[in-house]
């Protein structure tokens, strides 16, 4: 890709990549976005329209970088994913967004990434499956587990939401 094409991709998709990186690893979001577009600029990552959208490709690269970082910081063990069952979180803040953010970030990374890609970036199951390099069935299962966990973790919000109407 030429420099102009990469700049155009940055203008079109950097917000989506940044949002995703920030939700996955907030302290590393800047570095992840920088890495994603530098890889594109150097030709380490190649876009092939037949294999999905540019946005999906960039989110997939960002996802790999975020997981690498979590793994290197020993904050992620794939074996813990299956056993994770969340309890309701104490609602100790006035900001619902902040509370939801803490709950989403408490999800295991493989559940968190599919949830973020589906709910916030509105990717289809097929696009998510390509981005996270997993079958559609596995994506569906992770998404289901993520939603179930969040329903329980965010349960204390009900009273607050009912009060707000």
């Amino acid at each position, binding site marked *: 890709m030429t*420099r102009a094409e*990469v*700049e155009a991709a*940055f203008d079109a998709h*950097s*917000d989506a*990549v*940044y*949002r995703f990186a*920030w*939700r996955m690893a907030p302290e590393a979001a*800047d570095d992840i*976005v*920088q890495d994603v*577009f*530098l890889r594109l*600029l150097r030709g380490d990552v190649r876009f092939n329209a037949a294999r999905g959208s540019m946005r999906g490709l960039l989110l997939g690269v960002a996802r790999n970088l975020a997981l690498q970082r979590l793994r290197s910081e020993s904050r992620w063990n794939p074996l813990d994913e299956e056993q994770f069952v969340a309890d*309701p979180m104490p609602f100790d803040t006035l900001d*619902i*967004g*902040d509370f*939801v*953010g803490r709950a*989403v970030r408490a999800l295991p990374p493989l559940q968190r990434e599919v949830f973020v890609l589906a*709910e*916030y970036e509105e990717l289809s199951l097929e696009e998510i499956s390509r981005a996270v390099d997993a079958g559609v069935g596995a994506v569906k299962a992770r998404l289901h587990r993520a*939603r*179930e966990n*969040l*329903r*329980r973790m*965010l*349960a*204390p*919000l*009900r009273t607050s*939401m009912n009060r707000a109407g």
Partner: protein
Amino acid sequence: MEPLNDNELKHAVSSWKAPTTPGHLRGRIFGARQPWWRWLFTGTVRVPVPVCAALVVLVAWFAWQRSLPEVAGPSTDRQGEVTLADFQPDTEVQVRVVGALR
């Protein structure tokens, strides 16, 4: 405690907003814009290895050709041509007999 239902979850999830890309990131990735002539001093050109190898072979062949001694070919100039244009008869004829007449 009763878990949230689908609508409640959807509503709650939408309240978590993410920031947009910080402005400084573009500069970190693409650098500051430079005038075009700066490229003449700092620019790089990516050349595929086969093209580079072909150029090296070509330059070596030219250098080898130039180092060979020149072989004189058939002359095409008119310098060696024999003409009668400048022919002058001898003005002072000296006759010398070298053999006796019989």
